[in-house]
C-alpha cells in the first residue's frame, strides 16, 4: 500500500508523523540504496480517541521490544506505556525497517522512535497553545491531557486536538527529553505482552483460524543434497480432502486438518536423487580445515610475529572447535499465506517482515507491493527466523490455491533438519606472553568455518595475524546467524587461550586481563564483575572451579564469571553460579535487559554443555528433543546480572552481547576445577572425560 492509500484509509481525527527527508541523518539508514521508502513511513498515529498508535517494522520475538519501544514513546508524550498501542511487523502499515536481530532495535530504531515521539509532543503542545491561548512554556502535559499550569481548568486532550482534522508532520529536529527529566527510562516496566501470554490469548502464526484454512505438509528428502525425483501419491490421494500441490521437486500434501496432512504425507512414496555430502559430525573439523587450506588469506595483521615469538617467554598453541548448533526455537517455523486479488498476504513467524516480503516477492516473481507480511507473536528467533522459509513454502502453495489460506507449520524434525545452524568452526591459535607476564608478544589466529568478524577484543597485543579462508562457504550444511554470530566462537578460542597462557605462566586470569585491556570501560566492567562475584583470583587451577571470560558484540561488553562442579567419574559439568557484568550503555528497561542476560546465560549453558547437531552425510541424526539437548531446569545455576552505570552512552542493544562469553567462562571454570582444558564445544561428559585423561599426572 502506498502512502496515499494509507492516508485514504486513515480516518479524519489523526496526527500522523512521517519520517521525512530532514531525518536522513538519523541512525536508521537503508542497507541498500533506495530501500528506505520516502513515501510511506508513519511511526506514530494519534487518534481522535486519544490513543497513541506506534507502528514499527520490528517483531516481538520474546525479547520485549513491544514493551521497551512503548516506553520510549510514552516517555516523550508523558503517557503510561499502557496507553500506547504497538502495531508491529505489518509491511503495509509500518515503516520499512531492518530485521529484528543483531541487537539493532535499541541501537538503531529506538532513537528514531524517540525522535518521532518528541516531535509529536512538540506538535501537540503547539496546537494546545493555540487552542488554549497560552504559550507552550506555560503548559503541562500528562496522560494525554494538556493544561495551563496556572489554571488547570483550561485544558484539552490529544483526542480533542486532533478531532476532525487530518494532520501530517514530517520529523524535524526536535530533541528528546534530557535524561534527567525522564520518569520511565531506567525503571523496570511491566511487559505489555504479559496478560496475553499467561492466558493463552497471544496469537502465534499457527494460532490463526482463518475460515477455510488448509494445512500443508511438504515432502522432505531424507538427506541434504537430495531432491525429489518421482513421487507416488496415489495412496495419499485416496484420503478424502487431500490435495497434492506439485511444483518441480517441491511436493506438498494439503488437507483441512494439520494432523490429517501429516498422515497423508506419510503415504506419499518419494524417490530422491542427488549426492549427499561425504562428511559427518566427527570429520567436519578436518573437512573445514582441508577445504580452507588452499585459500587462506590474511585478513588483518599488525607488528612482526617473528619478533613477537622471540620475545615470548610462554607460548601456547591450541585448536578450538565448536559443533553445529540449532536455534531450536520452541515454536517451529510457521506461516499462513493467502493469495487473493493478485496479492499475497502472509501471517508469519519472522524476525524480518520486510526482508521476508522481498524474499517472497522474488520467489514468486511478484512486485514487493503485491506481498504483505503481517508478523505475529514469534515463539523465539535467535537469528533462526531472520527470514522465514516456511513462509515462502506457504506462499508457493497458496499461489496455486487462490482464496484459500494455507498454513505451513513445520514439525520438530523439519525444524531441526532445515535450520540454518550456527556454523561448526575451527580456530587455531598460537600466541605468546612475555616474561613479565604483562604483554601478549604475538597472536596468530587461523580460522575455518567462521568469519573474522568479532574476533578481536580490546586487548593490547604487540603482533597479530588473523587468517581466514578465501572460500566463501565451506559448510556441507546450511548455516545462518545464531545469536551474536561469530562472536561466541572467537570468544571461546581467545578467552580459553588467554586462560591457558595465564595458567602456564603462573599468573591469575584477572591480573593478566587487567594488564592487557586497553579500554577503560572494559577495565571498570572487569572490576565490577570480580567485586560483585566476591572472588580472590589465584593462578589456576585452584580447584574452586571458577572461570572468567570477556566478550563483546559491537560496543556492548560483557564480563562473565562462572563456577562449576565437575564429576570426574562421569565427566558431567554442573554449573553452580554465573555472574555477568554488562555494559550496553543506557539501559532503558532494566528488567527487560536483565531477562535478556538471564536468557543468554541459559542459552550459553546449552551451547557449552549439550547442544550439537549430529549428522552423517546429509542426514541429520538429531530429530527431536530426546537427543538434541536443551538445558532443562536442573541445569540452571544461580544467575546474577549487574549493569555498569553508563547512562551517558547510547543504548547498544542487549540481545547478543551476554551470550558471547558464556561457553568460554564455563570452559575456564572446568580448567580451574580439574586442570583439564576443554577446547571442543559442546563439552559433553564424553569430551570432558577425554580432556581429563590428557591432564598430566603430577610426578611424585
Amino acid at each position, binding site marked *: 500500500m502506498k502512502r496515499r492509500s494509507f492516508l485514504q484509509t486513515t480516518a479524519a481525527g489523526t496526527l500522523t508523523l512521517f519520517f521525512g527527508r530532514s531525518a536522513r541523518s538519523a541512525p536508521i539508514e537503508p542497507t541498500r540504496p533506495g530501500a528506505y521508502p520516502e513515501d510511506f513511513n508513519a511511526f506514530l498515529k494519534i487518534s481522535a480517541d486519544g490513543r497513541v498508535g506506534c507502528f514499527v517494522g520490528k517483531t516481538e520475538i520474546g525479547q*520485549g521490544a513491544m514493551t521497551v519501544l512503548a516506553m520510549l514513546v510514552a516517555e516523550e508524550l508523558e503517557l503510561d506505556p499502557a496507553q500506547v498501542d504497538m502495531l508491529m511487523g505489518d509491511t503495509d502499515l509500518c515503516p520499512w525497517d531492518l530485521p529484528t536481530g543483531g541487537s539493532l532495535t535499541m541501537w538503531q530504531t529506538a532513537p528514531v522512535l524517540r525522535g518521532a515521539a518528541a516531535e509529536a509532543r512538540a506538535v501537540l503542545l503547539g496546537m494546545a497553545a493555540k487552542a488554549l491561548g497560552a504559550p507552550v512554556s506555560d503548559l503541562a502535559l500528562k496522560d494525554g491531557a494538556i493544561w495551563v499550569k496556572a489554571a488547570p481548568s483550561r485544558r484539552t486532550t490529544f483526542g480533542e486536538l486532533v478531532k476532525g482534522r487530518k494532520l501530517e508532520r514530517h520529523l524535524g529536529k526536535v530533541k528528546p527529553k534530557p535524561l534527567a527529566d525522564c520518569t520511565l527510562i531506567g525503571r523496570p516496566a511491566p511487559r505489555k505482552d504479559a496478560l496475553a501470554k499467561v492466558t493463552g490469548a497471544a496469537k502465534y502464526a499457527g494460532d490463526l483460524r482463518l475460515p477455510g484454512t488448509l494445512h500443508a505438509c511438504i515432502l522432505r528428502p531424507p538427506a541434504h543434497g537430495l531432491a525429489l525425483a518421482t513421487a507416488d501419491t496415489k495412496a495419499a490421494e485416496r484420503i478424502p480432502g487431500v490435495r497434492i500441490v506439485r511444483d518441480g521437486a517441491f511436493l506438498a500434501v494439503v488437507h483441512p486438518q494439520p494432523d490429517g496432512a501429516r498422515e497423508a504425507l506419510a503415504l506419499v512414496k518419494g524417490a530422491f536423487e542427488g549426492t549427499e555430502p561425504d562428511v559427518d559430525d566427527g570429520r567436519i573439523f578436518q573437512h573445514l580445515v582441508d577445504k580452507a587450506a588452499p585459500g587462506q588469506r590474511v585478513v588483518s595483521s599488525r607488528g612482526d610475529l617473528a619478533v613477537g615469538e622471540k620475545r615470548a617467554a610462554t607460548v601456547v598453541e591450541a585448536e578450538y572447535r565448536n559443533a553445529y548448533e540449532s536455534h531450536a526455537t520452541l515454536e517451529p517455523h510457521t506461516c499462513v499465506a493467502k493469495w487473493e486479488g493478485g496479492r499475497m498476504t502472509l501471517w508469519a513467524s519472522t524476525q524480518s517482515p520486510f526482508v521476508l516480503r522481498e524474499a517472497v516477492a522474488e520467489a514468486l516473481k511478484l512486485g514487493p507491493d503485491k506481498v504483505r507480511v503481517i508478523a505475529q507473536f514469534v515463539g523465539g528467533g535467535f537469528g533462526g527466523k531472520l527470514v522465514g522459509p516456511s513462509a515462502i513454502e506457504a506462499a508457493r502453495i497458496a499461489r496455486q490455491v487462490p482464496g484459500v489460506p494455507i498454513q505451513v507449520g513445520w514439525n520438530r524434525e523439519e525444524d531441526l533438519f532445515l535450520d540454518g545452524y550456527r556454523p561448526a568452526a575451527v580456530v587455531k591459535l598460537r600466541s605468546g606472553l612475555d616474561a613479565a607476564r604483562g604483554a601478549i608478544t604475538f597472536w596468530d589466529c587461523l580460522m575455518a568455518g567462521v568469519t573474522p568478524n568479532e574476533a578481536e577484543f580490546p586487548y593490547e597485543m604487540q603482533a597479530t595475524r588473523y587468517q581466514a579462508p578465501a572460500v566463501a562457504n565451506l559448510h556441507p550444511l546450511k548455516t545462518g546467524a545464531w545469536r551474536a554470530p561469530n562472536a561466541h566462537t572467537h570468544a571461546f578460542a581467545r578467552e580459553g587461550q588467554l586462560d591457558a597462557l595465564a595458567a602456564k605462566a603462573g599468573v591469575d586470569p584477572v591480573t593478566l586481563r587487567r594488564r592487557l585491556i586497553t579500554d577503560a570501560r572494559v577495565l571498570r566492567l572487569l572490576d565490577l564483575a570480580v567485586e560483585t562475584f566476591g572472588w580472590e583470583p589465584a593462578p589456576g587451577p585452584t580447584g574452586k572451579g571458577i572461570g572468567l571470560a570477556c566478550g563483546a558484540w559491537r560496543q556492548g561488553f560483557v564480563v562473565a564469571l562462572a563456577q562449576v562442579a565437575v564429576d570426574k567419574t562421569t565427566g558431567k559439568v554442573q554449573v553452580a553460579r554465573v555472574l555477568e557484568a554488562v555494559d550496553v550503555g543506557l539501559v532503558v528497561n532494566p528488567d527487560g535487559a536483565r531477562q535478556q542476560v538471564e536468557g543468554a*546465560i541459559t542459552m550459553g549453558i546449552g551451547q557449552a554443555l549439550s547442544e550439537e547437531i549430529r549428522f552423517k552425510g546429509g542426514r541429520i541424526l538429531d530429530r527431536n528433543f530426546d537427543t538434541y539437548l536443551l538445558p532443562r*531446569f536442573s541445569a540452571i545455576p544461580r544467575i546474577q546480572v549487574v549493569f555498569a552505570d553508563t547512562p551517558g552512552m547510547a543504548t547498544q542493544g542487549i540481545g547478543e552481547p551476554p551470550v558471547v562469553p558464556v561457553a568460554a567462562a564455563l570452559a575456564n571454570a572446568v580448567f580451574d576445577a580439574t586442570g583439564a582444558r576443554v577446547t571442543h564445544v559442546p563439552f559433553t561428559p564424553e569430551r570432558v572425560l577425554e580432556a581429563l585423561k590428557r591432564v598430566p599426572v603430577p610426578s611424585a
Partner: protein
Amino acid sequence: MDAHVSFTLNGKPVTVTSPRDRALVWVLRDELGLTGTKVGCEAGLCGACTVLVGQEAVRSCTTPLGDVAGKAVLTIEGLAVDGKLNPVQEAFKDHHAFQCGYCTSGMILTAWAFLKQKPKASRAEIVEAMEGNLCRCGAHVRILDAVESAGQALGGAR
C-alpha cells in the same frame, strides 16, 4: 473412524466427533479453537502442549482423544475464573516468567497441577516437577521464582 467423544472442557460439557486415536492437542486447537495449547515436538518431549486431565498434567500431543472420554480437561483458557487470573498465572505475569511465551501455557499448567498437590514444595521439588518442560528463551529462574511464589499464595508459605 470418527467417534463421538464427550468430556468436560474448562468446566463445560463438549462432544467431539473425531477418531478416538486422534491426538488431543489437534482436537483442542483445530476442532475446538483453543490455541493456547501449543505444539512443540509432537512426541511428549517439550511440554508445550501440557493440559490437565482430571488432576494430572498430561501431554496432549501424545494423549489420544479417546482417553479423555468422560473426564475433565483443563486448558490455559479455562484457568482464569470470571476474568480473575489463577495464582500461577498471576505469578508468571508478575515475575515476567516468560519471554516468547510459547512454552508458557504448558509451564503454567504443569506448575498448577503440581502446586495443587504440593503447595509447600521446596525449590528442589519444583525443579523436579518442571524438569519435563522446555523453555528456549531461558526464563527458567523466573519460572521457578513464579512457581515458588504461587505456592505461597496458595497457602503454602513455609
